[in-house]
């Protein structure tokens, strides 16, 4: 049977490990969801046995808990504390080293070895997040070469969500739960009675070639229907939503809403929401020397608009109040990002809600700040 971009293929559960073998053979490092420290995180794995088989997550604002499922689903959960940006846009990266010499100093460019990653289990919201970071790092006059190298080498096995979490709101952001583009292969996990299989769509020539190496067959119409039903279930379970109509101007118009002050009273300016966000891209650079001052290096690491240093200009921080920092973050995500990059900076993955240590819920804040019926909050 020949596989085309429009074919729907079935891989049986017992053959699924062949995907891992085929990817390793091609020299990919496999990164996938796995259980660690009481959560489903993304890490390098070598076999299908490291996936969170039979696990699910229960999420709410400021809360996350793993629970056992009644079945042995491999993808029966939603997104956790990590995102794929940890591989594409590393948390910390040495940019270059310099050596002192007679004339001053000489820069030795850092040759970072770029791993070839295959990402397994990428959700629709995450594909959209990757697309957003592609725009940030690879479009425009200044291309981030590290990101570009990692991104161009990556292979993506996406998965349709068969359930949605309490903090998910991709439906309202038009970013899920159904995978639409930006993948090499896309899976739907189906379990009916005794059967357990994956319905697979092909998104690239590389995906097509890989599939040829795995035992597969054409999907039957009822199997395709069952796969679509699982995504419908996720849609129905979607825990939260954001009304995006006019949001770009509503946020700017409500710049002085009393709610900003209220949320600032709760916000710890800890930066967790930005660190877990799959689209947040800001970094700080730090120069370090050795004790003799002969060698120096420049290191880049993730930063957050919630720190004081982030907006430090001569003499102090421009955004010294927590209110101004929270407002900067939220309006950038949902409004000024659109001016800057032509799309929203939020994909509705819900991470910032789950992993905020005091459970601040961005969807709730937006509802108050953009309250379309009454404007009495405006001061």
């Amino acid at each position, binding site marked *: 049977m020949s596989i085309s971009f429009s074919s729907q293929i079935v891989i049986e559960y017992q053959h699924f490990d062949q995907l891992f073998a085929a990817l390793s053979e091609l020299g990919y490092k496999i990164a996938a969801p796995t259980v660690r420290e009481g959560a489903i995180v993304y890490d390098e794995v070598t076999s299908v046995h490291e996936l969170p088989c039979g696990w699910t997550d229960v999420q709410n604002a400021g809360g996350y808990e793993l629970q056992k499922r009644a079945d042995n689903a491999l993808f029966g959960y939603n997104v956790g504390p990590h995102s794929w940006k940890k591989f594409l846009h590393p*948390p910390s990266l040495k940019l270059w080293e310099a050596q002192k010499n007679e004339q001053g100093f000489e820069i030795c460019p850092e040759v970072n070895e770029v791993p070839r990653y295959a990402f397994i289990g990428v959700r629709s919201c995450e594909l959209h997040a990757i697309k957003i970071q592609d725009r940030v790092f690879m479009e425009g006059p200044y291309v981030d070469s590290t990101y570009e190298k990692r991104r161009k080498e990556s292979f993506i096995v996406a998965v349709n969500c068969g359930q949605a979490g309490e903090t998910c709101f991709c439906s309202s952001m038009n970013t899920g739960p159904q995978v639409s583009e930006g993948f090499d292969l896309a899976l739907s996990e189906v379990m009916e009675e005794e059967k357990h299989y994956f319905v697979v769509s092909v998104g690239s020539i590389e995906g097509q070639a890989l599939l040829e190496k795995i035992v597969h067959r054409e999907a039957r119409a009822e199997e395709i229907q069952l796969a679509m039903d699982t995504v419908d279930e996720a849609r129905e379970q979607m825990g939260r939503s954001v009304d995006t109509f006019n949001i770009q101007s509503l946020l700017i118009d409500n710049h002085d809403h009393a709610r900003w002050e209220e949320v600032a009273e709760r916000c710890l*300016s800890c930066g967790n929401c930005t660190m877990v966000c799959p689209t947040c891209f800001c970094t700080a650079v730090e120069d370090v*020397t050795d004790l003799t001052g002969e060698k120096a290096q420049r290191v880049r690491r993730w930063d957050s608009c919630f720190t004081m240093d982030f907006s430090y200009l001569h003499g102090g921080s421009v955004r010294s109040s*927590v209110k101004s920092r929270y407002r900067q973050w939220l309006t950038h995500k949902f409004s000024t990002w659109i001016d800057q990059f032509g799309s929203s900076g939020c994909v509705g993955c819900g991470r910032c809600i789950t992993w905020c240590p005091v459970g601040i819920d961005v969807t709730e804040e937006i509802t108050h700040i953009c309250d379309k019926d009454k404007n009495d909050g405006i001061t």
Partner: protein
Amino acid sequence: MAGTKKPKLAVWKFASCDGCQLTLLDCEDELLAITEAIEIAYFPEATRNVVEGPYDLSLVEGSITTEHDAQRIHEIRRNSKFLITIGACATTGGIQALRNLQNVDDFVRIVYAHPEYISTLETSTAISQHVKVDFELRGCPINKEQLLEVINAYLNKRKPNVSSHSVCMECKLRGTVCVMVTKKAPCLGPITHAGCKALCPAYNRGCFGCFGAKETPNVASISKWYAHLGVEQSEISRILNTFNAYPDCESKEEECER
């Protein structure tokens, strides 16, 4: 640094456990490089050799708890070009600053067989409450890499890379899963100064706050959330009052109970 005179380093001790100065001796791999770049002129914990002052760089450990120490720190300041406090004791008064919330005589009576021999101040205070401090390094004890970074920055006349944001930032940079969110553990990370690389959360427990308060700490909000997680009020006070007896946390708690 060939040809130039090496800067002179002195390490001073006040009320403390010695853990922070030990961190300097713990720099085993780097110790040789340090002594090549700097002359260890006064460091009783390491050598009996004493080189007279003045000193270029003084590292001060410990808090001020006696009248004698309150005098001595001024003399040290006069003898030091650059003065850096190391650790929670020197920077905020340390665990012994718990006495500031009670009557010190009560403690003395309970602890010592002969209270009459004890001469102590009512309070344990930070070095900066007595003299001008050029840089404060946090931690109980301080982190070895941060100590090296500060010495290194001093030698190379640059700003040290010591961030005052939350421990959460470090926790997320290393990919540790948040124990406050998954286990409802009352973690002090969100209001605590970074520097330890999120050591405690990496061992699956909440941050104790040994580095002290971060920039703009929101004690009221986090206390409220601990209560929401089911932590008792008395326990919340204990958590906030261990290493750095969080300044004005009591009044903030009252505020949030209202």
